[in-house]
Structure formats: structure tokens, C-alpha cells
């Protein structure tokens, strides 16, 4: 496809004998929100570090905007690492200008854009303060401005919501969607699958360094069909373990997500549940990403 922004082609990265990323190929299309998913240690951060040209792959190639990764592509990417950090002793304004200029912006342009984004986040008053004097939440906003201030065409967020309070979280989500609507491509990595369902257009599932599933999120989900049950109830939840031909996910005291396995009958499950608890909600739905992930992993292991 001509509108592919990021392209991994047979990429492998080893640390000693450990294959952190193992022969991975995928594409990210322009103007989409792409979710890189997988548990901790699946190879997400290593992939991102190769994409941002911090690490070099042992084999395979990575291109951004059709150009092999290098100093030129670095300037067109905005990267928010999982481990946040800024110079504590440096003033907000100086620091943002410095980071933007490292990515090739002129001083004037940097100042203009930083002013815009700081005002947008209601943070312009902090421009003369040292970063170390700001609260955690404020520092996160500054870091976010640092990521987008040079107007990159492609943004990379590694666990963007980790450590954010609900208000900042909501704001970040809005900005991500706004950037996408402005034609930017967004590449984000997370192990928290529920965030993905609200944001991503496309996903790539990683497990132990390997890509196990890749594609349009809606297509993937519909290909699984409505094979899951969302059950809300009051009463003793112990009956859940007795149910046959189902797998129980996301279990809590009054809610459970059930995956129907082969030979399972949804109506029989409803009748069975009613014997033990008061059923308040019963809905047939598409599987969650979590469910799809577990399913894909178990299929990989099985094959």
C-alpha cells in the first residue's frame, strides 16, 4: 500500500541469546491509530526503540515515510517513552525549545509552537519554572508538549496512559483523536488491552518477540463472531467455575465475561446461571481484545 507510514520487514533484534523481536513484519497506514499490544516483555519497547533509531535491528529493515530509519526520520517522529523524564533543573520553556531544536526546528518556530501547546494545556504560566518544581501531572503535560511540539507526522506513544490521572488521561485521549483527525499517524504500545478498544483502528499483537496477529481491529473482532457473553448478576459467584464449555474472563463479584467454547449453548448457560444468582444482564457480544489475545496465544502454542 502506498500510504504506509511505518514498515517493519523481517525485523529481528537479539540481546545475547534472547530474541526480543523475532522476524517481525507489519505496516502502519497513514492517518490511523495503530496499537502495538502484548504483555510486558513481548518486544514492544524494543520495536519502538528500533523505530526511533535508538537501537539497530540485527536483521531486517524498518522504513518510515519510505525512508530507512536514521537521523532524517527521527526528526519527523514524536516519541513519548514509557519511562518519562525531563531535565529537572531546566526551565520549562528553555527545555521545550532545546528538545524541539534538537529535532530540527528553528528557535522562532519552536517558540511559537510551544506557546500554542502550552496554552492549549493551560500550562503557559509555568514556562519560566524549573521542571523539578512542578507536580507529576504538570510534568506529564510538559512531556507531552515536548513530544508533539515539532509537529511530527507520526507519533509514538509507549504506554501513554500509565501514571496519568483521569483528567489528564481524558485530555490525552482527546488530543490523540484530534491529531489523528489532522492526518497524523499514531503508533502506540500498551499492555492494557481495554484502552485499545476505545482508540485503535489497527492492532498488532506481540507475544515473546513474535507478531501473532495483525490487522484492522473491527475486522479481527467480527471474524471471531459474537461468541462471548457479558453477564451481570447479584449473588454467590462460585457457580462460574462449574460451568461447562466456557472460559471465564474478567471475573469480579458481580460481573463476568464468558467465552463460549465448542459445544457451548448460550441459553443453557443462562438457565444454569439463574439457578444460583439473580441475573441482571446477559448479552452476546464480540470477544474483547484480551480474549482475542489469549485465544491467539493459545492457538500459537497449540500449533
Amino acid at each position, binding site marked *: 500500500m502506498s500510504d504506509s507510514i511505518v514498515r517493519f520487514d523481517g525485523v529481528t533484534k537479539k540481546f545475547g541469546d534472547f530474541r526480543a523481536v523475532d522476524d517481525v513484519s507489519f505496516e502502519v497506514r497513514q492517518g490511523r491509530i495503530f496499537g502495538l499490544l502484548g504483555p510486558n516483555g513481548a518486544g514492544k519497547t524494543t520495536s519502538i526503540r528500533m523505530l526511533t533509531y*535508538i537501537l539497530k535491528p540485527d536483521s531486517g529493515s524498518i522504513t518510515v515515510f519510505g525512508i530507512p530509519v536514521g537521523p532524517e526520520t527521527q*526528526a519527523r517522529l514524536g516519541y513519548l517513552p514509557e519511562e*518519562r523524564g525531563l531535565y529537572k533543573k531546566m526551565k520549562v520553556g528553555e527545555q521545550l525549545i532545546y528538545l524541539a531544536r*534538537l529535532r530540527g526546528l528553528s528557535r522562532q518556530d519552536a517558540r511559537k509552537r510551544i506557546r500554542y501547546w502550552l496554552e492549549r494545556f493551560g500550562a503557559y504560566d509555568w514556562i519560566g519554572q524549573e521542571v523539578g518544581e512542578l507536580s507529576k501531572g504538570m510534568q506529564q503535560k510538559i512531556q507531552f508538549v515536548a513530544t508533539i511540539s515539532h509537529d511530527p507526522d507520526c507519533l509514538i506513544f509507549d504506554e501513554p496512559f500509565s501514571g496519568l490521572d483521569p483528567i489528564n488521561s481524558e485530555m490525552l485521549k482527546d488530543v490523540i483523536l484530534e491529531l489523528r483527525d489532522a492526518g497524523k499517524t499514531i503508533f502506540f504500545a500498551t499492555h492494557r488491552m481495554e484502552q485499545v478498544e476505545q482508540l485503535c483502528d489497527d492492532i498488532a499483537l506481540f507475544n515473546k518477540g513474535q507478531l501473532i496477529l495483525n490487522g484492522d481491529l473491527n475486522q479481527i473482532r467480527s471474524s471471531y463472531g459474537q461468541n462471548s457473553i457479558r453477564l451481570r448478576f447479584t449473588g454467590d459467584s462460585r457457580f462460574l467455575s462449574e460451568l461447562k464449555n466456557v472460559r471465564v474472563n474478567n471475573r469480579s463479584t458481580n460481573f463476568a465475561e464468558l467465552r463460549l467454547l465448542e459445544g457451548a449453548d448460550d441459553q443453557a448457560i443462562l438457565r444454569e446461571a439463574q439457578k444460583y444468582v439473580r441475573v441482571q444482564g446477559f448479552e452476546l457480544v464480540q470477544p474483547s481484545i484480551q480474549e482475542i489475545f489469549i485465544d491467539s496465544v493459545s492457538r500459537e502454542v497449540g500449533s
Partner: protein
Amino acid sequence: MIHREKLLLIIQREYLTRLKSKIFVVSTILAPVLMILLLVLPALIQTMSGDRVRQFLVYDETGAVGQELVAGDSVYYQLTDADPDSLRQSLMRGEIEGYIVIPHELLDGKGSAVFYHGGTAGMTVTSRIRTDIQRTVRDIRLDRLDTPAEVRHILSDRVQTENLTITAEGEEAADSDFYMVLGFIMGFIIYGAMFGYGAVIMRSVMEEKTSRIVEVIASSVRPFELLMGKVIGVAMLGLTQFIIWAVAGAVLMAAAGPVIALFLGAGPETAEAADAAAEVAAFSIPPIGPMIWISFVLFFLLGFLIYSSLFAAVGSAVDQESDSQQLQLPIIMLIIIPLMFLFPVSDDPASTLSVTLSMVPFFAPILMPVRMAVLQIPIWQFGATVLLMILTFVLLMWMSARIYRTGILMYGKKASFRELWRWMREN
């Protein structure tokens, strides 16, 4: 390969943020103050502790020596008639600090004067008593022989010796002792600077790593550019500090003459006297040739570059300062070894040992300026040493950058030497 604009940006940040920092201002002022204190303090303590009145009793069998001693200092020495046994008792009871027994035969050149004390007499006291008695006895014996004044002069005359260095061009440079001390001081300053600025580099790398900013930076520039920018920025900072000190020193020196003249009571109306005083003040410091300055700055810079690349590698391999000590140990040893050879090298700067040691890149920053201050070294030694140091720096920087590149992304664990070796060989 290196992106020039980015490198300049990094150098600028590293230099300016430090130049504006409190630590820089404080250390620029405090370092010379401390150094002067270190030189002046021992003398100061000496005079301060001198306020205790000390007195020693003299039991004199000659009937002449004691009187002369008392005539010289009637507080320090006091004649006594008490016999040695009772003096001994008084000393044991702590009533007196000490006593001296001068036997008859001392004036015949036999026997010895004995100084008894309760262990409280330090080196200053014992050596003073020794010289006082020696001089007194000598004078009395000379008196008895009616020695003419000319002979006495000969005996007490100090013979002046002067040291002059003749360079290859035939110039005479006076006062080689001064240049030896100068070499020492320069060696120590370079030693302190390599340590101090090396630690600045290490801490700066560590700070970027622990604050995690380094990943953002590494996604914009090559780690090598960041490292080079840091090293150059801090080197410029070091030069700035030296220039400030040199200018301040020159101003003080120029001001010293008139100030001394003022203290001597010479008012502005006697301009000639002020000039003369200034001349005296300036003359007390022999000229320091440009070659000495150049070698000082050059070897400081090269030494800093070599050691800072090592310190940077250590900084990138650890998360906290306390973890760095084990990895720092070999570096510290490399810096300290030349200090141990400071004396033998300045004592015999042309010996094979001195030449060899001063050409080892790790030792040269301290030992070469010491040698160059004292003598004019052959140009090939100078050139070869500088070349060796540059090569060492390039090699170390290359190795260090490879360790750095991996180290800055490794969180939460302290690397061993084996791991550093592995990081260095990784592609």
C-alpha cells in the same frame, strides 16, 4: 557522520546550564580560596599555637653556658640551683615542663647536654634547644681562644649557591626551584581538574539516565553526539574556570605591588617608592614562559578528554552514585599513580623513568607539565606524547560510546566489567 548543528546545540546547553549554575560560581570562588588556605593554614596554626608560654630550667655546671642562654631568651630559659634529683622530682610531679643539664666538660668538647622533659616537647622545642646550646657553646669556646672576628664570620657565613638553567638557545633561566614548585602546583591542579570535571561528566550521564530524559534525547540525536557534546561542553567550562582564575590572579598580582607600597607607608606623593615596591613584588615571581602555559592547558585538555570518556562509560553503566565506586576504582588508580611519581620525576626530569612515565597517555597529563616546567624537553617527546594521547582518547571514546549507547537504556541493575565488555562488542 556527526550532525554539526545538533552537536553545537548540545555543547551550548551543557556549557551554559553549568556556567549559570550555583556550583560553578561557588567552586570558581572557593577552589583558589581553599588552595591558599591549604598553603597558609599550617603557618597560621603554628603561630596561633605559639601563644603558650614555655619555660625550661637550666642546671649549668659550666657557669657560662646557662647565663648566655638566659641572656638570649630569659623567658624560655631560666637558671636553677636545684640539683638534678630534685628537678627530676619536680618534673615527675608536673611542676616544670623540662630541664637541661649542662655538664662541665661540654666546654672542652666532651660529654653532652641532656634535655629532660615529660614527653611534651615537640620537634620545634628540641631542635631549638639543640641549636641554642650548640651556638652558645661554640661562641664561648671561640671567645676563650680569642678568635678574631674574621674567623667567626667565616664560620657563620652562609655560602650562597644559585641554580641557573641554560636552555638550548643559550638563555639562562634563574631559580629552578621555583619552576619545580610551579610544576608541582600545575600537576596538582590538573589532577584535581581531571577528577572534578570527570565526576561532573559521570554525574551528568547518570542524571540523564536516572531522570530518563536520555531516551527522548536518544530518539533525536545519536548517543555519540550527546556524549561528545557533553564532553566538549564541560571541557569548555573547565577552560572558562581556568581563564577566570588566571585573570583574577594576574589582576591580584598587578595590584599587589601598589598595595604593598601602601602598607609600607609610601603615600601617593612618593610615586617612585610605589614603583620600586611594585618592581620588588613582580620580581619575586620569575617569568612563566608561554610554553609552560600552553603545555598546562594542552595537557589538561587531553587528560580531561581521556578520563572523561572513562567516567562517562561508568556513569552510563550505573543507576546511582554508590554503585559507581567499584567501576571507578581502576580510573582512580590511573589518576593517582602519577601523583606517586611526582617527586622522583621533578627531582630528575630527564631520567629514563621520568621520560617513560611522562609519555604514558594516562600519566602524561600530570607528569608532562611537571617536567616541562623544570626543563626544556625534546620536541619529539612532546609531539609523541600529544599524539599518543590523542590516539588514546579516540580509542577510549570509541569504546566508551559503545558502552554508553547500551548502558543508558539499561535500568535497574548495576553492570559488571564483564557486561561492559559485552556491550562494547555488541553491534
